[in-house]
């Protein structure tokens, strides 16, 4: 056999590989992306849930923004004040934190206890059903029960309960606010975690109509307003609203409500 072909093959492949290797090492130096060592520290301190509550798609992007764009240090709501303090420590800065933990609450208790206007056979998402005559229930303010909020919660803190209404587990909830944005009826609210009594209705319909279509709706009778010892409930647009200001969880309104739409959340979960 002609040995020259072996020499030629070795030479060709060898030269090609060496040229390519030189090219790649040159490119690696030229296109090197400097990564701040503090970024890894920050990422390890952040919860790592990539929930998006801070406004960035993930914890890594928030860490990047903190280092490069001097972003606000307190945006991580699931992490809370402890994480904000740790971030400040890493960066050698001071940070003001409010240690009030927020939880979400769904202000509706209807579900199967509210009458349907029609049978809905469309795509089973709240955002879609809401576009169709504002949903399949007769109450146009209430929870539709298809679980857009359940799908978006990264902490498994919200579920559809036995009445077909979304319910938040205040133990698991971190107050990130993703369910608040996901609800097309805007009936999920963020409240400080120490308030355990909630008025589970968002219906602005008159009391007569509410009584016809929902067995647990607020009929704006005003009994809770009168019986509250610290005056923390007000009536507005045919709906009783808690101000979440002075409530001491005494529970008097829970007993006095004729339709039982005011609920003590701790008792429900436990």
């Amino acid at each position, binding site marked *: 056999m002609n040995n020259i*072909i072996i020499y030629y093959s070795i030479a*060709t492949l060898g030269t*090609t590989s060496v040229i*390519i290797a030189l*090219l*790649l090492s040159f490119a690696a130096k030229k296109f*090197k*992306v400097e990564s701040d060592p503090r970024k890894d520290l920050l990422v390890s301190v952040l919860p790592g849930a990539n929930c998006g509550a801070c406004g960035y798609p993930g914890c890594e992007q928030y860490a990047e923004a903190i280092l490069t764009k001097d972003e606000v240090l307190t945006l991580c709501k699931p992490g809370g004040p402890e994480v904000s303090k740790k971030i400040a420590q890493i960066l050698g800065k001071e940070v003001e934190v409010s240690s009030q933990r927020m939880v979400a609450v769904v202000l509706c208790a209807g579900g199967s206890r509210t009458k349907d206007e029609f049978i809905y056979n469309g*795509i089973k998402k709240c955002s879609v059903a809401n576009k169709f005559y504002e949903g399949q229930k007769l109450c146009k303010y209430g929870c539709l029960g298809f679980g857009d909020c359940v799908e978006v919660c990264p902490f498994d803190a919200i579920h559809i309960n036995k009445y077909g209404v979304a319910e938040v587990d205040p133990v698991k909830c971190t107050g990130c606010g993703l369910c608040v944005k996901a609800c097309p009826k805007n009936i999920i609210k963020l409240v400080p975690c120490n308030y355990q009594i909630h008025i589970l209705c968002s219906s602005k319909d008159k009391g007569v109509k509410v009584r016809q279509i929902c067995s647990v709706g607020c009929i704006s009778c005003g009994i809770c307003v009168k019986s509250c010892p610290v005056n923390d409930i007000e009536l507005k647009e045919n709906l009783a609203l808690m101000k979440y200001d002075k409530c001491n969880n005494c529970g008097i309104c829970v007993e006095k409500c004729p339709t039982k739409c005011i609920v003590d959340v701790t008792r429900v979960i436990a």
Partner: protein
Amino acid sequence: MKNSTLIAIFISSIFVNNIILMRFIGLCSFFGVSNKLSSALGMSAAVFFVMNLSAVVSWLLYNFVLVPLNLEFLKIIVFILVIASLVQLVELFMKKNIPALFKALGIYLPLITTNCAILAVSFFIVDYKYNLLQTLVFSSGTAIGYTIAIILFSSIRERLELAPLPNAVKGYGIVFITAALMSLSFMGLVGLFGF
């Protein structure tokens, strides 16, 4: 018979011999990236760039190094070397200059490396004995054909996400069925330009 003018090569590589839907080459990246239209667009841009560049470099290496030295049998190794290093270069460049696209494509860039579509183009250039201009036209056309196929497909897939489907075909079941139907429709173009 087979028309070898530039326009014929161009049109046939886009539609008649569409690399995905007619030749069934390079399917892994096709199915992997097409779940969102945005990543499909990014992927097709990367494929266009890599395919053209590697086709030209492969042609140069083949005709000026391998053929004069009677080393045609080395074409497989040499082409793979060239493609792998080109993809590495593209990856480095994107990581520095277009980090958003790099994050979106991340895992799929190595897929282009082992993507037989790029290697297939290099082999076709050798088989059909194209000159440099025909090579450029052929690789551009193939990349455009890939782009058309993946954009059409990702648009369909975005709609399939919301469609009410039987549980048995949900996910990749209906995806493959859809791709097969698309391929059937492209088969109607067989015979154009004698291809």
